């Protein structure tokens, strides 16, 4: 029902991702040590009258994209907090904007959260002050991407898994493995479509977890140099099979539907558009995915409005509306009472489904999987390695 809205929104997101943002100056932070930002004690009082939101496209809608999608106007009416939204296109852009300051809350994916936490750009969140936190799916709470040392840093918003899609005419009726994207004898050779971002290195790592257990990869975002090199080597081999790398949703929709891309990584929201001859599944090796978290800027002058927003966006009705609009699984259990079909489509409550979904995370030098005997390859190296691979 929301297909056109979604396409519109995706187009907006695509364009935003393409637009070059101004280069801000760097902050002097970045010690990499444990953050020491104090948590707000409460209580949440009257709003300051203003709230500056940094959001993914479709996460903070005020009815201007579509009159039906509006959860900002009622928020403003209820709280008196006037909202100002800026949309960003990539996690990297979000981090840059937060470093520049001036924003109160941000919807951060797992590959941005830790950078924000360790960069002292955000503050811990006192979940006692947000009643709706209690109804969040347990497997979304206190994850490695949204907490540090048992301290929560935000309010989960929604999640999704990166799916394997294939063209049945080329690959066959059924498929269950990323092998069609990685193995040289794949029937999809010449039509493989990986996601064009450094974070896709983790997808290779997920495949290696299954195919080369000797490497000992436990977390695709915690790769030591050996593991990382193996993933890059796999990706270099994959390059021969690739037809196109995609980062623009429109490009994938078009390439998949007209049959030039025959085996690819994709998202549920895109799969909804595909014709009968396109199969989709979560591959047996597991998958990367995203889990987004609303976080509060460290120096926000609008702390009350910020807490009110976190609680608002996680409330069952609003959470359902916002995640349905975007096309992902909601974070609030009660959201599924409102639209059970959405929760079935996006596997919201299926704990087992999410067990081998590795949410996007920020690789750091300190291994996220707890290893202390080795250094892991940090994200900036991932980024460079990806550029080199693509060159």
């Amino acid at each position: 029902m929301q297909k056109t809205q979604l396409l519109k929104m995706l187009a907006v997101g695509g364009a935003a991702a393409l637009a070059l943002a101004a280069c801000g100056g760097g902050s002097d932070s970045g010690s990499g040590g444990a953050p020491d930002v104090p948590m707000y004690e409460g209580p949440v009082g009257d709003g300051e009258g203003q709230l500056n939101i940094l959001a993914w496209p479709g996460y903070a809608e005020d009815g201007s994209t579509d009159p039906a999608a509006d959860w900002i106007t009622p928020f403003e009416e209820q709280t008196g907090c006037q909202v100002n939204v800026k949309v960003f296109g990539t996690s990297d852009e979000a981090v840059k904007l937060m470093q520049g300051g001036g924003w109160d809350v941000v919807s951060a994916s797992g590959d941005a959260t830790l950078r924000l936490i360790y960069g002292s750009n955000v503050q811990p969140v006192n979940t006692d002050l947000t009643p709706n936190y209690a109804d969040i799916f347990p497997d979304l709470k206190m994850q490695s991407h949204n907490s540090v040392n048992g301290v929560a840093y935000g309010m989960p918003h929604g999640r999704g898994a990166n799916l394997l899609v294939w063209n049945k005419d080329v690959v066959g009726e059924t498929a269950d493995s990323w092998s069609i994207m990685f193995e040289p004898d794949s029937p999809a050779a010449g039509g493989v479509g990986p996601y064009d971002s450094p974070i896709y290195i983790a997808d290779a790592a997920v495949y290696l977890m299954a195919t080369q257990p000797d490497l000992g990869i436990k977390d695709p975002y915690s790769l030591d140099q050996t593991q990382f090199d193996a993933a890059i080597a796999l990706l270099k081999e994959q390059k021969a099979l690739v037809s196109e790398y995609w980062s623009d949703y429109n490009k994938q929709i078009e390439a998949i539907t007209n049959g030039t891309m025959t085996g690819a990584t994709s998202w549920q929201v895109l799969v909804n558009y595909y014709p009968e001859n396109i199969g989709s599944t979560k591959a047996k090796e597991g998958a990367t995915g995203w889990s987004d978290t609303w976080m509060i800027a460290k120096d926000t002058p609008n702390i009350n409005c910020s807490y009110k927003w976190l609680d608002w966006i996680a409330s069952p009705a609003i959470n359902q509306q916002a995640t349905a609009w975007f096309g992902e699984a909601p974070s609030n259990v009660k959201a599924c009472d409102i639209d059970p079909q959405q929760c079935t489509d996006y596997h919201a409550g299926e704990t087992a489904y999410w067990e081998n979904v590795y949410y996007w995370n920020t690789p750091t030098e300190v291994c996220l999987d707890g290893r202390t005997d080795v250094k892991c390859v940090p994200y900036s190296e991932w980024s460079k390695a990806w550029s080199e691979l693509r060159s």
Partner: protein
Amino acid sequence: MAATTASPPKGGFGYRHPRARLAALLAAPMTWLVVVYLGSLAALFLTAFWTVDGFTSAIVRTFTFDNFIEVFTTPAYLQTMLRTLGIAIAVTIVCLVLAIPVAYFMARVARPRWQPLLVAMILTPLWASYLVKVYAWRAMLTPENGVIAWFASPFGLGGPGFGEVGIIITLTYLWLPYMILPVYAGFIRLPNSMLDASADLGAKGWRTFRSVIIPMIFPSVVAGSIFTFSLSLGDYITAQIVGGKVIMLGNVVQQNYVTNLPFAAAFATIPVVIVLMYLAIVRRSGALENL
């Protein structure tokens, strides 16, 4: 006559201090040029010598040549540089080959009252969104069921598909007006009497074209090529959409500017240097003086 020579010139401040007046006149644009334009270039260049915190991507201001060393010692990056340069040169040449006859027709063959219409037609694509145009070319270039492939298949040919050729075709389409317009202006400026004189001295059409027309519109051609060359050199969106697996210089910058601004800056200085080198070559040829 001593009195006249000794008497000071009359007039206001500006008259007495022509330099001061000039300075006042140029102050605003010069400030803009120096601070905003050159300043940002300098900042870019300076940033290229810094490094980043590997975790937060925050800039760490310690001086290093590492970024440049990495750019120039990584074979893959050198390959991308060469590829980008090749694409930019190819686009410029194709634009040139297409623009000269088109501009000649517009300026010298078409009736004068059609000229504004023809110029408008050349300009029309510039009003359309860049993305729309590139996506249109994606539809044209799509292998097997794209428009070009469809037309080529009866002849047993495939379309160019996505890749270098697709990029060159698309960029040529995008930047062609920037070549046609200056060349057209060059043809318009060309006095008729030059062509008459050449014919008068015994030269037939082709000879006149080679010995008079081309040398006289050369500065316009150079102006156009500066546009097509530098626009192609810096483009990255076209490669994303119709490049298939192929990327250009700009894509590397775009992929890294947030996570590793210094590295991206080092990479971004390359096209700037290439364009400066191009301008230097052009300057030597003397074409800029007549621009």
